[in-house]
Each structure stands twice: as C-alpha cells, then as structure tokens.
C-alpha cells in the first residue's frame, strides 16, 4: 500500500542554513502520526516544506502518489493538505466566522461553506458563541480551536498541526489534546508536530523523533513511549 504522504530524503533550510537532512517519513490514510523532538530540531521547517512555504533543496515530497515539486504554494490546500500553522496565525482583526470563511477560500470549498461551518460549530460549540468576535481578542485555547476549524473548512484529507499546545496554559494544553482525539474520532488523517512528547504519544499511532534535522528514531507510539531514549530525554521520568 502506498502512503498518503511520503517524504523521501528531504533536505531543506533557509538560505545557507540547512534545517533538515535526508528526512524520510510517511503517513498512511487514516493514521495519526507525530513528529516529536526538541525546540529547533526542524519540526516546523518540515511542515513548512510540506506546505511549500519553503522549497526543498533535495529529495521529494509526494501526496497521494503525486510529487508536490511543481505545485504552487496556494494550490497545496486544493490537493487536500491543510495546515494549522505554528502560533495559530489567525487573522486577528477578522471575526471568527470570517477566519473560517478564509479557510473555505478555495473554489471547491465555497459551495460547501454553510455545511462545513455547521460541522465546525458542532465540533467546537464555543466558536459558534464567539462567531462575531474578533479572533485576536479570544484566549489562546479558543484561538487554537478557531485555527483548527479554519483548517477543516477546506475539507482536508490530511490535517497538519504545528505545535498545537505551544504557548498555552497547562490546563488548556490538556483540552487541546482532548480536541486532537475528537478530530481523530472524526476520521481525519493527522500529522502532528509537537514538543509535548508524553501527551502527543497518547494521541497518535506512530511517531518519528527528529533531532537536529535528522530522523533519529521511529516506531509505534507505544514503542517510543517505552524506549529509554525517549523516557530520559523527553518524558522526564
């Protein structure tokens, strides 16, 4: 079976600085996969490369068997790849509903806007209450819900989440991981990049450990959670 998302020997970076070295990984349809690792390991760079916000230097990224090399950045979402960026990056002076409308910007999503809006509001009832509020005035946790909702508005096949728990209060972090479970239960294929290793490994099926731009380990979530290396360095037990 061929993977939904496949990275083969991907190297990427900014200018002369190389952030990713020979990264090979895959995500199968229906799976939840995490990429874990410390700050500065290249996790965000990895997602930026997949969404083509930066170009890869070598190697190839393929989605459903099709190379993304020649796809324009704003067309990535049309293929079914939707990203919740690091720090949420909502449009602060647009309302919640306008932010969600931006998520349905692509032509194919517009006829389904009303239907998906109801779906997002059903998933996050808080967003329905706040729909006329400026997104920038909400709490971090609410903004994360809105950012995830915005990414779902395009009806993605694969949802990419960049550090969904970063910068949030500890009590909120727990609720964010509950959200992740909810989204998995909806049947989305998910790839999560996370520093909160212990929590994320409870949510996903498989994980890759990324350190200084290289994949250092991979396996099922249970295997990684049990491994000494992960226990010592990341879980802190």
């Amino acid at each position, binding site marked *: 079976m061929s993977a939904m998302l496949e990275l083969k020997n991907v190297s990427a970076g900014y200018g002369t600085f190389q952030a990713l070295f020979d990264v090979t990984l895959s995500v199968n349809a229906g799976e939840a996969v995490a990429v874990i690792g410390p700050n500065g390991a290249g996790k965000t760079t990895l997602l930026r490369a997949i969404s083509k*916000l930066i170009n890869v230097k070598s190697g190839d990224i393929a989605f459903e068997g099709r190379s993304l090399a020649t796809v324009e950045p704003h067309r990535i979402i049309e293929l079914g790849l939707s990203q919740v960026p690091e720090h949420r990056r909502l449009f602060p002076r647009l309302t919640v509903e*306008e932010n969600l409308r931006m998520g349905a910007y692509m032509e194919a999503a517009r006829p389904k806007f009303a239907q998906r809006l109801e779906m997002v509001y059903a998933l996050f009832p808080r967003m329905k209450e706040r729909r006329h509020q400026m997104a920038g005035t909400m709490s971090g946790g609410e903004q994360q819900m809105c950012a995830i909702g915005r990414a779902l508005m395009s009806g993605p096949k694969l949802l990419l989440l960049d550090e969904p728990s970063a910068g949030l209060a500890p009590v909120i972090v727990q609720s964010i991981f509950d959200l992740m479970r909810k989204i998995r239960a909806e049947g989305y294929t998910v790839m999560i990049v996370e520093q909160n290793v212990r929590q994320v490994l409870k949510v996903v099926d498989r994980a890759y450990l990324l350190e200084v731009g290289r994949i250092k380990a991979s396996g099922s979530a249970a295997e990684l959670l049990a491994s000494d290396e992960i226990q010592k360095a990341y879980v802190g037990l």
Partner: protein
Amino acid sequence: MEIFDIFLLETVLNGVLFGGVLALLALGLNLIFGVIDVVWICYAELMMIGMYTVFYLTKTFGWNLFAAFAAAIVIVSVLGVLLHVLVIRPVLDSEPINQLLVTGGMLTFMQAAATLAFGIEFRNVGVSMPSLVLGEISLPWSRISAALTALVAMVLLWLFLKKTYLGTAIRAISQDRGIMPLVGVSPARIYLTTSAIGGALAGLGACLLVLQYDVHPAIGLSFGPLTFMVCVLGGLGNMLGGFIAAFIFAQLISIGGFYFHIEWGYVMAFAFFIVMMFVRPQGILGGKS
C-alpha cells in the same frame, strides 16, 4: 446675523460635499497601502490621466459623458494594474524608501508625459450643472452628485470587502501575509486585483473632479498631497480613519476659507495636520504597527 449664519451653514455643507469626494480619493490610496504596503505617490496623477480621458472622449470624440466616465474608470484601472506589474512588483521586497522613490518618480514621469502629450492649457469638459437652491443656500449639483456618487461607491466597496471571499482576503492579507498560501490565497493575485480596484477608484475620482475642476498636467499636485495627508491623519491603511480625516480636512479648508480666504483654509488644514503629527503620529485611528 441671520444671513451670516446661513452662509456659514452653506460653507459647512460645502465642506461635507468636498469631504465625501476626498474620502473616496483617500479610500483608494488606503486600500493600496493596506494590502500591498506601498504608497502610490502618483495616485493623483492617475486621476489626472482619467480626467484627460473624459475630456478628450467627450470634447474631441463626442462621446456621451457617462460612456466617457466608464471608459476613464476602465483605463485608469488598467493603468493601476500596469503600475503594479511594471513598477511596484520589482521593488516589493525593497526598502520603503526605494518604493517611495519609484512611485514618486512615476509622478514626475506622468506629469512630464502629460505636458508633452496634452500641453499646459487648462481644459474643461464644459458641463455646467445648475445649483440646488434651498432658501438662501445654494449648492452646486456637480458637488452634490459627486459626493453622493462617492458615498455609493464607498458603500459598495465596503459590502464587497465585508461579504465576498475576495474582499475578506483583501482585508486579511495585511494582517498576516505569510500564511495566505496556507488558506489557498495567492498574494500576487490579490495584489493585482487590489491594484485594479485602486485604479478604478482613482478613475472614479477623476470623473467626480472633472465636473468641478479644469484639467492640466499639474492638477495632481492639488489633490495628491491632500489625499496623502488625509490617509496619514486617519492612520495610513486604516480606511475608517481616512474617512473621518477626510471630513475634518474638508471642514477646516471650507470654514477657514469662509472666514479668511480659501488659501488660508489650506494653511489651517496643514497646520492642523502638523500639530496632529506631533500629538498622534500614528493617525486618528492608527495604532497597529
């Protein structure tokens, strides 16, 4: 005393009418700056081209006035797109000072080109409209219709920005340029569309001004600096701020002109602008950095 008050009222009403047109001019400039982050210093020169378009189409080619208006809006809109593609796009990532220099250079270029092509004569489309007389007050219809048209255009633009996908993207892009591709928006395409809208607004401004003012190659200097100051006073890129500032400026000019002389009205408006730049350098409604 009674008569005096009536004339002051007429002055204020004239100021309101002028403010409406000024608000429309500022709206185009603010829209461009808000979206593309570049100031079209030559904005009023685009209007000058639009005014000449109306003049020649009606006077030389005998077009119907409204057909000429439509043509002017389309032509200036296309010029706006060309300005973006040929002049702005190459310097999009350059220092702001370089961006000011190229659009400022375009101002000089367009003035010089207009002088060569059209001569320095003052031209008038020669459309005379009656005045609306209400008791002692008399307001020229050319001003009333210009202000009403400006108002309708602003409402339509507001609805467009508020209700459509494209309009929402235009408002969103200045808030976070970097993630636009993630939601499926190509910034390059938004810049083109915005340039076309900005050009069309300059074209519409030309149609409104050509009924009240003679056209000459330097007409842009009468409105360019004023429009720019209205935008800065309101908070550059802030459309609501520009709207409010336009009416403040127009009243200062109108009332100052009533008590002293029209030139003194401008002096008062500019003095107020300078003082405000010390008090609130970010503009009336500015605040975002």
